[in-house]
């Protein structure tokens, strides 16, 4: 059954692509002008990598290190500190649901369940068999009065309820 296979973009086999060439390199040069050190451009650089490739591979970390005059180990240390940087490929749509107390008492756990079912991702952090969805639980998204907030890629959705989930998922397919 093909459904057993690893999703569309298998990790590790995907071909490495450098990010900091051409226009991206120019953009990074502009970022350098904002700070007195090159190192300070690391978080913006990592965001550029993730935007270009969807995740940050070891080789891309090494590339960022090279461009910023840092070591790959240092860059990895920083990447692993921040939860929003993906060290592995994720589904085409990355979903973050707040389940911290204020949202929890307003029913966030049911929203998570509904999302896991509607997307077919089934398990937190796993990617749906069609490679489309990864659903994660996160801590407070800073929108507690709009329970339950859900971040789908860069779309910040407010007041999501389990009833609204099927419609929401359809919008992205």
């Amino acid at each position: 059954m093909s459904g057993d296979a690893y999703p569309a973009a298998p990790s590790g086999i995907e071909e490495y692509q450098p990010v900091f060439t051409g226009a991206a390199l120019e953009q990074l040069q502009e970022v350098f002008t904002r700070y007195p050190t090159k190192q300070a451009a690391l978080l913006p650089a990592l965001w550029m990598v993730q935007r270009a490739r969807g995740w940050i591979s070891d080789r891309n970390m090494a590339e960022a290190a090279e461009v910023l005059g840092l070591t790959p180990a240092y860059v990895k240390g920083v990447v692993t500190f921040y939860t929003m940087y993906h060290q592995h490929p994720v589904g085409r749509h990355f979903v973050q649901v707040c389940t911290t107390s204020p949202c929890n008492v307003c029913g966030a756990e049911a929203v998570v369940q509904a999302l896991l079912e509607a997307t077919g991702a089934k398990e937190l952090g796993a990617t749906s068999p069609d490679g489309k969805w990864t659903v994660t639980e996160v801590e407070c998204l800073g929108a507690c009065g709009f329970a339950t907030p859900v971040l789908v890629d860069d779309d910040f959705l407010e007041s999501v309820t389990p009833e609204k989930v099927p419609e929401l998922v359809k919008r992205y397919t």
Partner: protein
Amino acid sequence: MGYPHKPHSRETVVLSKYFGEADARSYKGWVKRGGYEMLRHALSMEPAKVIDIVKESGLRGRGGAGFPTGLKWSFMPKEKKKPHYLCVNADESEPGTFKDREIMRWTPHALLEGAAIAAHAIQAEVAYIYIRGEFTEPWSVMEKALSEADAAGVFGTIKIHLHRGAGAYICGEETALMNSIEGKRGNPRIKPPFPAAAGVFGMPTTINNVETLAAVPHILKNGAAWYKGLSLASPKSTGTKLFSVCGHVQRPGNYEVTMGFPLKDLLYDLCGGMRPGHTLKACIPGGSSVPILNRDETESCLLDYEGVVEKGSMLGSGGVIVFDDSTDMVYQIMRLARFYAHESCAQCTQCREGTAWTTKILERILAGQGKTADLDLLLDLSDNMTGKTICVLSDSCAAPVVSGIKRFKQEFDDYIAGRRKPVMVA
């Protein structure tokens, strides 16, 4: 219900006046509303004069600690020998708090104007606005506003940059934020040195919260005496404050009231009270890092720095979390402890181990495997986590635990004695 909500007649709308008006987001729309006049005015004043006015107004930091803003600015070296920096804390990640997001979404220029005035007052040439990575919408609104204002040349020689976080509550701690700007892991630094001596890039730095800075243009415009006059109870708490109300109320959202406003009225009048058939059980008045209040304490609490302390908690960031009688307090306290365990930067043993063990013990209690001695163990852990670490994240985890056990001990006992059905699996 979210924004735009029509302000309640008992709100004092200063910061939130233009919330919901899309036109106020544009540079033109902001100027039409009198925006950037106070920046021009400030730039023509001696920096020390601006600091004096802010000192006189009684404005205190809205990020959580309530430190007097003018005083903080005055710690910066008067004679400039090195570059000075301003950091703007837009990391807003404290559970229960969602006011800075609203300021940035609706009135981005208010923040930019306040930041530029502050930069002038502390003689900083560069300001970094650190916006949490998840705030995608505020980010684009701020980015657009900044480019429009830059194009209009309103900031003079002051340069403002946006810096995007990448998911870490701890980066809201001031020195962690500075490390994060420098391209490092967001570990808080040991103090001293304090930021005014050696902050971001090792240079004299002032850091302020979004709401703090957004209040500054209003103070310059209407005068320190006006701001000081906005005070219903303690004269040490002045101005208006945005309270983010969430949890079990009918109308959650941001409400702007004068300092000293009764918490009871905020909850029952402005927010419409509890859901039908439910009563108030508990309230965390200042974001998840402050002690939990019971119903009596909540209903008699005045919302200013002194008033909340009097009831045994703190005003913090003004994130008001409401729990009604359907709430399992043990479960929610576990959920908060888990938050801190997840967000600990793990530098300090007391915090790394303490937050993790607190969570484990609470989970064990919720799984029906708690022992009578567990409550003492939790309190002992909390004691070791308070006042002993590099930053106060560790103390913040202890706050709901200690206050929760004190006020809702019966609920813990019920789980431990087997009178209540376990809700977790061990």
